[in-house]
């Protein structure tokens, strides 16, 4: 056994429920989390695309940002992200990025306009650093509150709206990327129509004390099965969604990552976010490398850090996420390549276990998304 620092893993409020359901637990971002339940990753993945799966994502960070004095939280947050936050109507949410001075990505997050405050959901691995980042820059303008007594569930799949609609009928017709305070089975929740799977679905923020009864109640619905982080990863990869720390990080700009769409028109003109000079220059001139979808043409998966080569064997990039897509029925990957190789259909070679395997650049997502369009 390797030496440990003897820091015990943290647990979400659903830890006991996971064990009761027979989950295989693994350490993730300092937490003991379920990677899968007895059904297994493939079955959990497929069930999400066919019906509805319930995920515990309580390890993620939930932060409330409230303006002090007569200020405006959106204005304050815009000094740290390239997104148009001012334009969010109450109840509207958006995906955005914390950037750094070099134009790299410190974390990706969801921001919701909750009326008198902004509600942020950040990655578990970065939540302390993100709170510190907010404090370092915004403490004078905003109260920054880490909502450590709240838990987070994700209910994802084509049946999610039908299921949640039994508790709160508004869920059926809530627009994609909107959020409302609703009462589910007697428990107040902030419900947003969003997710990380490419399917229709909801993320549900509730008090930690309510999450187990709510989870049990949802699992009791005939369409709903539990799913773990293994399926969460294969689902998001098929949806072409980035995982911070793998596909995006401090060394990747939003332009290289194919996330230029997160930078609104006004922000492109005005700047005013960290790394704006580099990022806006890349917007004008193009970036020298690009994130692409990759389909290995044989059966072997190509995992993160696999070298990507051109047909002469020269290194042209690296895989950042790779595995097997249960819905695709074969290996899939994402990675960065020199921009000359980023066009759909370009032939690539992947260096796997001393052999070069053929692959090609494909469009993302690998599986068509099913976001609610009303």
């Amino acid at each position, binding site marked *: 056994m390797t030496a440990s620092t003897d820091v015990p893993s943290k647990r979400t409020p659903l830890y006991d429920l996971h064990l009761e359901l027979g989950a295989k637990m693994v350490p993730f971002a300092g937490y003991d989390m379920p*990677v899968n339940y007895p059904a297994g*990753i493939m079955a959990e993945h497929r069930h999400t695309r066919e019906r509805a799966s319930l995920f515990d994502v309580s390890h993620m960070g939930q932060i409330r940002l409230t303006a002090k004095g007569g200020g405006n939280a959106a204005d304050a947050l815009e000094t740290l992200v390239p997104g148009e936050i001012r334009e969010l109507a109450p109840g509207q949410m958006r995906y955005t990025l914390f950037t750094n001075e070099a134009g790299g990505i410190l974390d990706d997050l969801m921001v919701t306009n909750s009326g008198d405050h902004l509600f942020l959901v950040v990655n578990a691995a970065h939540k302390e650093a993100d709170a510190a980042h907010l404090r370092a820059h915004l403490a004078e303008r905003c109260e920054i509150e880490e909502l450590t007594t709240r838990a987070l569930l994700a209910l994802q799949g084509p049946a999610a709206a039908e299921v949640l609609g039994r508790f709160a009928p508004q869920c059926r017709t809530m627009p994609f990327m909107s959020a409302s305070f609703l009462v589910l089975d007697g428990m107040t929740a902030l419900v947003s129509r969003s997710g990380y799977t490419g399917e229709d679905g909801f993320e549900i923020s509730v008090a930690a004390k309510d999450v187990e009864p709510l989870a049990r109640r949802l699992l009791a619905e005939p369409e709903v099965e539990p799913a773990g982080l293994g399926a969460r990863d294969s689902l998001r990869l098929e949806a072409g969604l980035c995982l911070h720390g793998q596909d995006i990080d401090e060394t990747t700009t939003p332009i290289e990552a194919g996330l230029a769409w997160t930078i609104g028109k006004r922000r492109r003109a005005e700047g005013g976010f960290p790394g704006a000079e580099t990022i806006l220059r890349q917007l004008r001139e193009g970036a020298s490398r690009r994130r692409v979808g990759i389909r290995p043409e044989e059966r072997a998966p190509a995992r993160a850090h696999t070298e990507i080569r051109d047909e002469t064997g020269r290194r042209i990039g690296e895989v950042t996420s790779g595995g097997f897509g249960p819905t695709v029925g074969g290996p899939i990957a994402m990675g960065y390549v020199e921009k000359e190789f980023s066009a759909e259909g370009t032939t690539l070679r992947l260096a796997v276990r001393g052999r070069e395997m053929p692959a090609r650049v494909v469009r993302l997502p690998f599986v068509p998304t099913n976001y609610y369009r009303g």
Partner: protein
Amino acid sequence: MSKERYTEEHEWVRAENDICTVGISVYAQEQLGDVVYVELPEVGRQLQKGKEMAVVESVKAASEVYAPVSGEVVEVNGALTGDPATVNRDAMGEGWFVKIRMSNPAELDQLMDADAYKTYVEGLS
């Protein structure tokens, strides 16, 4: 008379004279989860006991399978290419990986028998 043995890396070996069949144990396939790909050695390859012989991949990760004995690969289970899930369904039977002509059958005596392996696995949980 056929002998069944196990390694600490959860490979099983069934030997009949100088030919043995090798696969991974039920415990191993449970730990791996759904198998999505198996890479087998070429027929004719010379294997060394304890060195890498094959790769088995689940959705999440690749794992190495080691040669439990030294010898030459005489047959590989081509069915695993089209249906890797066979390893999960029938690890001890249809999910076999390779057949080896052993160069040193005495190596089998260094491996665990079924009871010893059972105890070993219980100790891991």
